[in-house]
């Protein structure tokens, strides 16, 4: 059999997909064929490389050359220059923003230097639609090892000793969870993979399923072996068509090889996996709601206990783990519990995948060892704040999480310290905010999401979050009342204290953590009617500068509500009580005399807002 001399790995993740990576892949294949190189050069579509900011990504192996922002039109040049003549195409290499040097090796890039890819180990390295490629990178070896060398109890013990904890948010020790499920006897048990990733901006589970589906299937089988389950179910949202397609292909190929099905690897162990589709409700990431949804019932949580390990899918003991948790399992078994537990901090072992987004230079998917600081993530991996702006906060944990500020920059990231800082690990969303972001508006955004996604079963979450959102809306519109801040805090505390499931119990975190860290901004909004970042439209005022106005009357004529007064050649004034903030005056003014300001004299501003709210009510 001939060997490929060159491998062109085109990122097939959803991010690069939207940067036309599929067309790039096709063009490369065509060009390779045209040059008769198909026996020497292999072009494949892989999973996500993580550096989504710079998509589409093309990696050339074994030259270890990492091309960024590659367009389909670059294919010809890459083949002619790099593949045929052996000269790298410099303009497509990553440029270090500080030294301005071209960096061909991804390991030398700041974005990758501090990363440690365990869960993402195969993303970007294999063709997820070809099981052979995964097998070349040890897929199903861990299953084989567990089945032939360890008893189920020994395997569970290994996972326990590794210190792996659930990556879906709450961080429950995985080995312990398996042990409980193993302990409960039943004629049928289930292994459920929670692929209902719902945090806004988080896409690590999707990337793993798209880039390395076999690692999840293998881990589910291992879990089935440990807990005594013969059936696996992947609960995946229907909005992830690519992940679904690749999972289906992977399941089909694994069955064909006999790696799923009856008597796996000649043992007595049988295990198979099927898919269940969700409709994308955030709350269905909660395991009891997820199980209800799989059963065809309304996707809403129920009280725990009973835990799914006692009574889960169809009333049978079920072990539910998240995608990223599963993706860690095979490596732990192959490399050992001690190898894994050597990574990370005291009670948080291994790595965590984060979706880095917001006002940061290097947006993308990163996997870092536990214990790394926020500063390292933001300033080294993330390449700092966009446009040289000032860092304000980072939101972690999605709608259940909170905001961390400058003072938390050197906190090591692990389950305990994030919770102590008023946020949480969550599933790994990480959104960076800069000085232009209004923290009240950020809290309002997340509450808006929660109000949309609450299932409506329990009163505090159903009604309480709505009331929180209403109060935040009032405040950002400049109609906040003096006791709104106290009300937010009490309501937030009660919702946390009384809600039925994890969604409600964490839903006020964005409010409570911004209240803790950015009380000044809340006070300014409520008492001074001012939004320092200028994000809240209701707190901005069009003002005509005395010095620049020449009294041409253009603004006065264009104002639809006749809010502007002033004589010809005299200075014009906007009556804030009448102004509807349409912006027509500012557009019309030829002399840049009109500006939108958030520092309008306080008394006037307060009066104006008061006026407006009274006419509205």
């Amino acid at each position, binding site marked *: 059999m001939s060997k490929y001399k060159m491998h062109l790995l085109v990122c097939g993740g959803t991010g690069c997909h939207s940067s036309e990576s599929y067309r790039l892949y096709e063009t490369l294949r065509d060009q390779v064929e045209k040059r008769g190189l198909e026996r020497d050069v292999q072009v494949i579509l892989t999973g996500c490389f993580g550096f989504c900011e710079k998509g589409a990504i093309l990696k050339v192996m074994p030259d270890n050359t990492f091309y960024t922002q590659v367009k389909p039109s670059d294919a010809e040049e890459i083949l002619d220059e790099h593949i045929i003549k052996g000269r790298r195409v410099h303009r497509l290499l990553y440029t270090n923003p500080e030294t301005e040097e071209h960096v061909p090796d991804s390991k030398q890039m700041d974005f990758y230097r501090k990363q440690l890819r365990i869960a993402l180990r195969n993303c970007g*390295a294999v063709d997820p639609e070809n099981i052979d490629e995964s097998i070349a990178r040890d897929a199903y070896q861990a299953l084989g090892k567990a089945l032939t060398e360890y008893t189920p109890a020994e395997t569970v013990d290994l996972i326990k000793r590794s210190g792996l904890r659930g990556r879906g948010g709450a961080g429950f020790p995985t080995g312990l969870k398996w042990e409980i499920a193993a302990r409960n006897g039943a004629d049928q048990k289930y292994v459920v993979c929670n692929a209902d990733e719902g945090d806004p901006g988080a896409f690590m589970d999707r990337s793993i399923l798209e880039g390395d589906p076999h690692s999840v299937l293998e881990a589910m089988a291992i879990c089935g072996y440990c807990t005594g389950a013969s059936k696996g179910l992947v609960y995946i949202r229907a909005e992830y068509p690519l992940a679904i397609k690749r999972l289906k292909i992977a399941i089909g190929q694994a069955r064909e090889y006999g790696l799923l099905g009856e008597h796996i690897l000649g043992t007595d162990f049988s295990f198979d996996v099927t898919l269940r589709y969700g409709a994308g409700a955030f709350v269905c990431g909660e395991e009891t709601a997820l199980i209800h949804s799989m059963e065809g019932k309304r996707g809403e949580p129920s009280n725990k206990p009973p835990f799914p390990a006692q009574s889960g899918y169809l009333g049978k003991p079920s072990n539910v783990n998240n995608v990223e948790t599963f993706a860690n399992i095979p490596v732990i078994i192959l490399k050992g519990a001690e190898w894994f537990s050597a990574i990370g901090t005291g009670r948080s072992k291994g790595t965590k995948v984060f979706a880095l987004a917001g006002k940061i230079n290097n947006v993308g998917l990163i996997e870092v060892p536990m214990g790394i600081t926020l500063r390292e993530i933001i300033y080294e991996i993330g390449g700092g704040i966009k446009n040289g702006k000032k860092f304000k906060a980072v939101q972690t944990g999605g709608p259940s999480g909170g905001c961390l500020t400058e003072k938390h920059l050197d906190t090591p990231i692990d389950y305990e310290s994030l919770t102590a800082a008023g946020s949480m690990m969550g599933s790994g969303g990480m959104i960076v905010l800069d000085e232009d972001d209004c923290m009240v508006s950020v809290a309002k955004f997340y509450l808006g999401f929660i109000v949309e996604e609450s299932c409506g079963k329990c009163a505090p979450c159903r009604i309480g979050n709505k009331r929180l959102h209403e109060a935040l809306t009032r405040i950002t519109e400049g109609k906040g009342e003096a006791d709104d801040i106290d009300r937010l805090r009490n309501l937030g505390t009660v919702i946390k204290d009384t809600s039925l499931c994890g969604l409600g119990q964490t839903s006020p975190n964005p409010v409570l953590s911004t209240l803790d860290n950015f009380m000044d901004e809340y006070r300014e909004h409520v008492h001074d009617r001012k939004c320092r970042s200028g994000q809240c439209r209701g707190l901005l005022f069009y003002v005509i500068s005395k010095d620049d106005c020449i009294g041409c009357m253009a603004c006065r004529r264009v104002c639809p509500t006749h809010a502007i007064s002033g004589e010809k050649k005299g200075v014009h004034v906007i009556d804030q009580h009448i102004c509807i903030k349409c912006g027509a005056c500012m557009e019309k003014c030829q002399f840049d005399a009109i500006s939108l300001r958030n520092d309008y004299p306080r008394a006037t501003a307060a009066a104006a807002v008061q006026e407006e709210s009274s006419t509205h009510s």
Partner: protein
Amino acid sequence: MNGIKTLADLKRKQEEVMSRMGQRNRGENPESLVQVKVAMATCGIASGAKEVMEYFMDELDRKEIDAVVTQTGCMGYCFAEPTVEITLPGREAIVFGYVDIRKAGEIIERYIGEGELLDGIIPQNYNTI
């Protein structure tokens, strides 16, 4: 596709696949492996560099030496084609000229295998990309 019925089957399958795509995975950490760069510009190809490269790949695999075999552009020694740059872990790169298959066998045997210096080294005064 044949079924994989035992763990031994799985290991065999892995080896089979690795032999086809092994070069890809080795490229991740070239520093720890033997790196072979074959100059594959027009002059090199004309002098038989393609065959030499294939020979390197097959022979290194056969001898179970973990190596990364890549092609590179013209090194500027067109008179001495085919030219091959060899980097052993922790050592400076060395360029050999006039590498035909016989010479390649010798390089593998003696330089890569034993670390002996051979004739045919071209003084290096360039940097490859």
